[in-house]
């Protein structure tokens, strides 16, 4: 751990809208961004559903918060780990997910994808590498 910088992992395992956990966890991420820690987000199990594109919430009358994921790059939250096995189990592919990019100022602001699709084993390694794990 660098001086005063901890690795924070926000674990998302629940689908959006049926419960508030997806939305309120994202609110923690946004506030947490101001604290300059080493932040990663993990999406596994039903959490992968949070990143599916084309969410249209008009008819259920709740706010569509999915565009907020696209703003994460501006908050320097650029590591969104998505578990491949969780996608496969749910019949999803990378094409079903939103495009979420960040700008790498070290490479002339080149746009890079924030979503990193990882295997279950790689996800386990990510988790084992953290200092603080927040679950919602």
């Amino acid at each position, binding site marked *: 751990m660098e001086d005063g910088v901890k690795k924070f992992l926000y674990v998302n*395992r629940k689908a959006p809208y049926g419960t508030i956990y997806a939305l309120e966890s994202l609110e923690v991420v946004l506030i947490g961004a101001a604290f300059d820690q080493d932040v990663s987000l993990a999406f596994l*199990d039903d959490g992968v559903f949070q990143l599916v594109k084309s969410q249209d919430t008009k008819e259920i009358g709740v706010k569509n918060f999915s565009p907020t994921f696209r703003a994460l790059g501006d908050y320097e939250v650029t590591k969104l780990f998505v578990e491949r096995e969780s996608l496969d189990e749910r019949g999803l592919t990378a094409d079903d997910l939103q495009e979420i990019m960040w700008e790498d100022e070290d490479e002339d602001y080149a746009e890079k994808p924030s979503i990193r699709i990882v295997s279950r084993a790689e996800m*386990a390694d990510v*988790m084992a590498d*953290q200092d*603080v*794990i927040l*679950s*919602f």
Partner: protein
Amino acid sequence: MATLHTVNKSPFATQALLSCLGHAKAGDTILMIEDGVYGAASGTGLSDALAAMSGNVTLAVLAPDMKARGIDEGRLMDGVKTVDYAGFVELAATTDRTQNWL
């Protein structure tokens, strides 16, 4: 660098325990608390799968939650440790991080 995982839901109700087992690493401890203690019982439809998946992790169960639910210590899977709240605290203090599977 071990992790203490906690699981608080019955494996017959949600996938939390199975997902936890799928991500735990060798040397980790999985502590079953609240309704999660049902996962520690032997002779269930999941016992064999759980035993097979948990080879290199330590399984533990929170005794107060077990007793509350009328689960006798004799009905636990082999190798499952029982701890009280003080033991829960000790597990959290002696591992490197905690991950709560909700």
